[in-house]
């Protein structure tokens, strides 16, 4: 009896400690963003988020995500189709290589593109002869974002499609369905939630990416500053309330991301991307 009581008390202490830790360590920073954003009142906040610089940063951020995420979807579908529907030599190497961007520091990722496209890089002289700019321009930002989000959809889809198997698709093929018809009428309906899940992870990262984009952006206000860079610039100019106002928009996006993720996990039985599953694939 005493043993059971002490086990129960121990349990309660563990739960309380974990919850307090989560609240203090994770929730408090989120709360601080909004508190700082509204520290000078709602009207200041509304003015701050309607500054032309913030609006143009917001536009650029959405543009970059609108290019990077569809690419990521396309790549994820292609990679997982090849990897989970066929057996070929070098498959494990391919899976490992897809994960490389997860291991590389974002700053190093940005630096790599400077080495290729920068003025002193491989293609720099050729690009400048043809009046093309990649580094310190929007294409560089898009490329850096594509790099950091590269594995997101693929690693969501590969374990999922692996688990599902290809029986339905093989049946469709034997019955004479063409490739596109197999994909749109059999595969896509099966993987749509996993696909959406991966796309949300990719979009969230694309919107929030800082290190890689920072290296290739050049910080030209109104032209090559995304939202996270604009936040950095405002902060470094000691415009703290404005920086936090901008940050609150991204925090809101993060909260919505978490909600959709949780909703998808609950309704469609997706376990979500766990580090364990990641490493398993």
């Amino acid at each position, binding site marked *: 009896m005493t043993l059971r009581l002490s086990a129960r008390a121990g349990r309660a202490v563990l739960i309380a*400690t*974990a*919850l307090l*830790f*989560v609240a203090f360590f*994770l929730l*408090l*920073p989120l709360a601080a963003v909004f508190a700082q954003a509204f520290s000078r009142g709602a009207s200041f906040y509304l003015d701050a988020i309607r500054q032309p610089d913030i609006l143009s940063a917001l536009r650029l951020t959405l543009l970059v995500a609108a290019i990077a995420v569809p690419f990521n979807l396309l790549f994820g579908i*292609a*990679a997982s189709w*090849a990897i989970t*529907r*066929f*057996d070929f*030599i070098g498959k494990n190497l*391919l899976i*490992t*290589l897809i*994960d*490389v*961007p997860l*291991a*590389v*520091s*974002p*700053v*190093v*990722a940005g*630096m*790599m593109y400077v*080495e*290729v496209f920068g003025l*002193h890089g491989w293609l720099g002289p050729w690009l400048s002869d043809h009046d093309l700019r990649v580094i310190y321009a929007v294409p560089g930002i898009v*490329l850096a974002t594509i*790099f950091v989000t*590269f594995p997101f959809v693929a690693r969501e889809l590969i374990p999922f499609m692996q688990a599902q198997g*290809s029986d339905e698709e*093989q049946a469709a*093929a034997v019955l004479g369905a063409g*490739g596109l018809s*197999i994909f749109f009428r059999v595969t896509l309906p099966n993987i749509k939630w996993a696909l959406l899940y991966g796309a949300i992870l990719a979009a*969230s990262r694309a919107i*929030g990416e800082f290190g890689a984009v920072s*290296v290739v952006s050049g910080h030209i206000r109104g032209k090559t500053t995304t939202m*996270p*860079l604009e*936040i950095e610039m405002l*902060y470094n100019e000691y415009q*703290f309330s404005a920086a*936090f106002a901008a940050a609150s928009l991204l*925090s809101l996006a*993060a909260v919505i*991301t*978490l909600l959709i*993720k949780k909703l998808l996990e609950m309704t469609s039985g997706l*376990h979500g991307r*766990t*580090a*364990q599953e990641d490493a*398993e694939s």
Partner: protein
Amino acid sequence: MKITRGLFKRPSPLPGFGISLGFTIVSLVGVVLIPLLAIVLRGFRFGIGDFLHAALAPRALASYKVTLLSAFEAALFASLAGFLVAWVLARYSFPGKRLADAIVDLPFALPTAVAGISLTALYSEHGWVGHFLEPHGIHIAFSQAGIVLAMSFVGLPFVVRSVQPVLQDLDPAVEEAAASLGANPAQRFLRILFPTALPALLTGTALAFARAAGEYGSVIFIAGNMPMKTEIAALLIVTKLEEFDYTGAAAIAFAMLLLSFAVMLFVNLLQWRIHAREGRRV
């Protein structure tokens, strides 16, 4: 189907192998492999001597030390706290569990720059937490402790998400058998639960360490960024680039890449061992 491909690929009735694998490989080479090669080859273009000299300069060495030490401390902290959170989420049910579970992913979802300025605001002199600590002489913002804090924040979910599924999937029959054979709770934890979860804990800790070592956005605001003292390697790369010292930047980037790949290898070996032990198909 096509005999010529038989050596490379097992036959399958499904279409689209060529186009899907082709697109995958072209993207991989263009987006990942060629840019990676560019950094490595920078060393050969400007002479290995210069490259090594830049990679091993005192300021670079100091930045590796700050980065590695802080990342190590952060990974250690994240592994302890993460194990507790994973344990509670996996084994107990309580009101608000789903919410807590969702919040664990916050550091994945919150942009690093936002986390950086928010942690700085919280822990600096006048912040909600800082104004309690500063009078006692505890300085977190603008010191190495701040770097560890920011790195722990971004690293935590890696540990939780690695350990949680393993604890969840554990067959209760194993524990019941141990209990029926007279093992007390401490013995059950130390001899069954912890050894089972250990590879996952190591994986999560290694992932947290890798993320922490490469972290930039959340760290630079809170770090203070004093050369030789609180300057992380990622920041030194950015500084070198701003000074147009491309060889210096590439040299440090190369050193960081080596570290990334070492951790990646470690994690893969660990996973390989887990699968070998469990006899599961990879």
